[in-house]
């Protein structure tokens, strides 16, 4: 596989090779796992759901529960209403969730199933118990990407539950702040909550897969793990001072939906990866009533201390960054802050904004960089062949390129299919930045050690 990529880049219009994105439903499924006692539900062929669950399991190394309509030939002709009605009946009688989050697939979208109408019918027929909830998101696989699917399901949560609430405070006297965390690991969601709590605010994350996709060993297979945003929390989104949407692609629609439904103002921010973006995140929390105490200052100070210690190893390092747009943009900024040169910056997810934002972040370096929105890894590989880099940052799908071109590779983003621990250790916040810097530096220095002739191989570096 490694030598099937020719160096000359040719214009391609029809074909996608080695994608840097996947389809919407898997993102919706992941988001839905972030609601407590929610059963994600895939309205389509049984294969989609099986693939999505397997893929998520490979990254998180956790069981992933989701139900499917199991379309048949008949459904593809006459529509999937009977399948969804029967599916909901099965789900509520068999698996007893508090809420079912239905997402569509390319097939149910193409045949044009009207989900709200079918869910309404299920209510009328009392298939859905009165105390239970069904929400839905349209996630056609032929537009957007998995990140957009995540965003759509997160927005569906707000649309279904957010309402205006006059008296803001509750839960002690601490002011509530809503956070839409983006398509990140459970460890990152945990970290965001910790940071927000450290400022004295009361964060409500939605969705929140911590405690679900990083559940501890209990000796049982808990069908609904303990974590996840509760329905009560979703119903109280309107209590917040503001909703922070982290990452334009994954979180903007949900933050907008909360504002539309409840009047809670939105604050759109980059994913807090690295020092500048985390600073901005905390500044917004401070503006919304949080206080940055000495502990947080010290935490930041330790990060600054580390990057000062290693700056000479990172300065001028040429790096290629690929993955989901919110991650890639934030990583690009962080690498820039560290004095590295992001030579190739690429996402598979569509959206014109990506190129504009990457260009802005790179500033005077932009003319010397390749920036690609809605591109694939075949192209990235070609770029790297034409302009080699010292370091590659991205998900596991970068490993073929890293091996073919012999480049140090730091895994970050989703999915990571060949290493463990990423869902337990954060990438976000100052702690995540410390971890990133340490891993990048290790990768570069390991490489230097590997390549050094004996007489230049040094103990102290």
């Amino acid at each position: 596989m490694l030598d099937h990529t020719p160096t000359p880049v040719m214009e391609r219009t029809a074909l996608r090779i080695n994608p840097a994105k996947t389809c919407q439903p898997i993102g919706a499924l992941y988001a839905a796992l972030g609601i407590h006692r929610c059963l994600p539900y895939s309205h389509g062929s049984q294969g989609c759901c099986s693939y999505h669950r397997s893929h998520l399991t490979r990254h998180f190394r956790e069981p992933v529960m989701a139900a499917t309509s199991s379309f048949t030939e008949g459904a593809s002709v006459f529509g999937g209403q009977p399948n969804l009605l029967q599916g909901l009946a099965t789900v509520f009688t068999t698996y007893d969730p508090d809420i079912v989050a239905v997402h569509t697939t390319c097939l149910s979208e193409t045949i044009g199933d009207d989900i709200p109408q079918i869910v309404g019918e299920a209510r009328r027929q009392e298939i859905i118990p009165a105390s239970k909830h069904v929400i839905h998101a349209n996630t056609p696989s032929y537009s957007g990407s998995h990140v957009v699917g995540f965003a759509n399901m997160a927005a569906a949560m707000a649309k279904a539950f957010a309402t205006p609430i006059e008296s803001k405070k509750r839960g002690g006297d601490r002011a509530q702040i809503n956070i839409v965390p983006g398509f990140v690991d459970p460890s990152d969601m945990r970290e965001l909550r910790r940071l927000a709590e450290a400022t004295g605010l009361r964060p409500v994350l939605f969705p929140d897969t911590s405690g679900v996709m990083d559940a501890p060993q209990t000796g049982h297979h808990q069908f609904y793990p303990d974590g996840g945003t509760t329905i009560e929390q979703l119903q109280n989104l309107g209590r917040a001072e503001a909703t922070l949407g982290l990452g334009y692609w994954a979180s903007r629609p949900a933050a907008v939906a909360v504002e539309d439904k409840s009047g809670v103002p939105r604050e759109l921010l980059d994913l807090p990866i690295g020092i500048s973006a985390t600073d901005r995140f905390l500044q917004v929390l401070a503006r919304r009533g949080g206080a940055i105490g000495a502990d947080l200052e010290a935490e930041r100070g330790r990060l600054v201390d580390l990057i000062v210690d290693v700056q000479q190893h990172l300065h001028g390092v040429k790096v290629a960054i690929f993955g989901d747009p919110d991650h890639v943009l934030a990583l690009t900024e962080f690498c820039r802050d560290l004095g590295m040169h992001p030579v190739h910056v690429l996402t598979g997810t569509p959206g014109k904004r990506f190129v504009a934002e990457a260009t802005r972040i790179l500033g005077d370096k932009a003319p010397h960089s390749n920036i690609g929105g809605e591109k694939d890894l075949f192209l990235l590989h070609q770029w790297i062949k034409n302009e080699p880099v010292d370091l590659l940052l991205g998900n596991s799908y970068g490993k073929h390129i890293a091996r073919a071109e012999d480049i140090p590779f730091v895994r970050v983003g989703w999915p990571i299919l060949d290493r463990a621990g990423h869902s337990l250790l954060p990438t976000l916040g100052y702690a995540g930045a410390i971890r990133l810097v340490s891993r990048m530096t290790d990768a570069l220095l390991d490489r230097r050690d590997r390549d050094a002739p004996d007489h230049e191989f040094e103990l102290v570096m």
Partner: protein
Amino acid sequence: MTEVLAARARQVARAGTGGVDLDCDRQSTSGSVSQRACTFCGSRVVLYPIADAIHLVHGPIGCAVYTWDIRGALSSGPELHRLSFSTDLRERHVVFGGERQLEESLDELIARHSPRAAFVYATCIVGVIGDDVDAVCRAVSERTGIPVIPVRSEGFQGSKRKGYDAACEALMSLVGTGDTAGIPRHSVNLLGDFNLAGEIWIIQEYLRRMGVTVVANLTGDGRVDDIRRAHGAGLNLVQCSGSTTRLAQQLRQAYGTPFQKVSYFGLDDMAAALYGIAEHFKDPEMLDRTRALVAEEIATVLPVIDECRADLEGKRAAIYVGGAFKAISLVKALRLLGVRTALVGSQTGTAEDYRYLAELCDPGTVIVDDSNPAELSQFMATEDVDLFIGGVKERPMAYKMGVAFCDHNHERKVPLEGFVGMANFAREVRASVCSPVWQFTPRRARAGRSGTTAHTGRAAAGAAIEVMC
């Protein structure tokens, strides 16, 4: 929640309770958390390992991503199969059709990679949006001079088995188009082996030692030109019967080639497969060579097996795999290791397979078709198993419950076929079952043990844990 779904009552049975007659190959019940895959998955699994062909997934991006390089179907040469090619259909194609997209993609791929053939997988929406995949394939094939084969694999058509059939149909269109000159009488095709972790190379080596020539691999480490002349082989060996029996039947019908169902898992089944071949060719010298081979191989692995058995005796296992034939071999292989099968099931077994399993297993063994997580975890707990053998979706579930695991599916990383594979299997199983980590898992800790036999008592007593087994 953990009761068997009412609609599934006919898909679960116990051995030794009279006639086992499972209803199978049904679509999963709508709304169930099924472990099952779809038609596309079945086709892709079978055809994917053909390494010098283009595999183009026609549809939105997802299907191509989830099947991109996920199995170690190794190739000794070209690795085209490890790239992910998709037409990445977008909204405009759903409205206006994706035929042009498909045609341009094929042209570009064939020009750049000069493959020996191209397979085009039609996914869920392709039929619905009205693309005439057959016509596009025909046109491109005429223009480029290579076989361009449409695979009817829309996911909603049914279960994985349906996809196997579509794949077999695609393969049938290749067989018979090559020159069979020079193929010796003692020759075989290997069907249903996908060369995970290099397994087919082990089998090929055995055959070489026996004096049997392999004409075509279908499809592990497969090559298009070999497959085109597969009709010249004297015998077809069908392993993983679920996926390629149909192909063997079609080959028999079209070319008169007999076939044998074989399993390369476990000592008994592996030896039986080789003897079956030797007997088929009615060559006494080959039979002698085979006897020598089997004796030699078994002698090498027996010490390993005995050693592992000493640690595994009395353990209980659950098996949930794709094909029932594999499940059958696993029951036998585990028995050789002293492990009792408490639960066995598959995604694609036939009623006949399950009847055989019921006869083979000890009375009381639970037998399931198309199971789901709730059911599997319930049985795992009530049957108190020490080991689970399954695939990617079952692994974390088993681990959560404090149960050891062995991947006998796509994600196995060591070869489990052949005599040496049995030794590897024994080691893998022992490594997981006897890991000291189970003592920390709540289930085992609660029970005050990390297994069911003596060695765990040592752990509970706080004895040194470096050598638990």
